[in-house]
């Protein structure tokens, strides 16, 4: 891993973690476009959320303070998505011809 690539990871993941951890608790909690349309036109009651999800509504369970619960959920999710996407890309990438694949 070259220095440039490490720099990209530090800056890119760092900015994403700052947004997810410290800004997301202050994001608008109004319904989004689809939720608004569903509520206005009477089909919102059809929605059923899956009970088995570990972090429902982006609130880390066991944390009383709502803003902290959202921030920790954002932090965890961002790191998790990075790990999954980076791992998948590393597995898939075309292998070097010099044999150090």
């Amino acid at each position, binding site marked *: 891993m070259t220095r440039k690539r490490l720099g990209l*990871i530090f800056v890119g993941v760092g900015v994403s973690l700052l947004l997810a951890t410290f800004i997301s608790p202050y994001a608008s909690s109004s319904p989004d476009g689809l939720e608004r349309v569903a509520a206005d036109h009477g089909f919102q009651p059809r929605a059923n959320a899956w009970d088995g999800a570990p972090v429902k509504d982006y609130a880390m369970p066991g944390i009383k303070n709502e803003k902290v619960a959202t921030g920790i959920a954002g932090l965890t999710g961002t790191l998790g998505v990075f790990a999954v996407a*980076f791992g998948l890309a590393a597995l898939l990438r075309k292998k070097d011809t010099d044999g150090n694949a």
Partner: protein
Amino acid sequence: MHIPDGFVSCSINAATFAASTVALGVAVRQARRNLDERGVPLLGVTAAFVFAAQMLNFPVAGGTSGHFLGALLAGVLLGPFESCLIMGVVLIVQALVFADGGITALGTNIFNMGIVGGIGGTYLFYGLRRVLPKTRKGFLAAVAVASWASVLGASAACAMELILSGTSPARVVLPAMLGVHTLIGIGEAIITTTVVGMVLAVRSELVGAWHEGGAR
């Protein structure tokens, strides 16, 4: 725009699941052939950024919010199928861990945001770039229009699925979805153009579409 379980019929979910599986399969095959070592960290970082930025709902008219989609950003940085792959990873984590978007609706959500928004949006961007001036401004104008259209296109697909499922009639849901996402798409265009402009200024080699099309 994440569809929960219960909005879309089984047959629509099955059809879009099949289409999404094929698209992700093509994306995997393309990555095996084209994704080089430099693309690996960029793909991971882009997915993390898309997930994080999707949490930042911004207010639009009348007690409604919207959030960044990121499909066109991913397409401009990495390519259409890479964008679909990134949206797939983000949507799967959101559905399984955060209950954001349904489990049975996962194929439908990947279809709307990954195939229509990511693949469709990026090809529209390629077309716009061809007709617009081959300058930085022309490039960013194509980014702005295509990112707005990627949100509108995904919302139109979502409306179609609701209509075909008998959830809501066309005359109601189509104008309502397109109306609100016309506004949300403006937010998408502002964020995508700003981020692409910043990356172009600092590390232009990360913007794949800037190099492959001779846009300079």
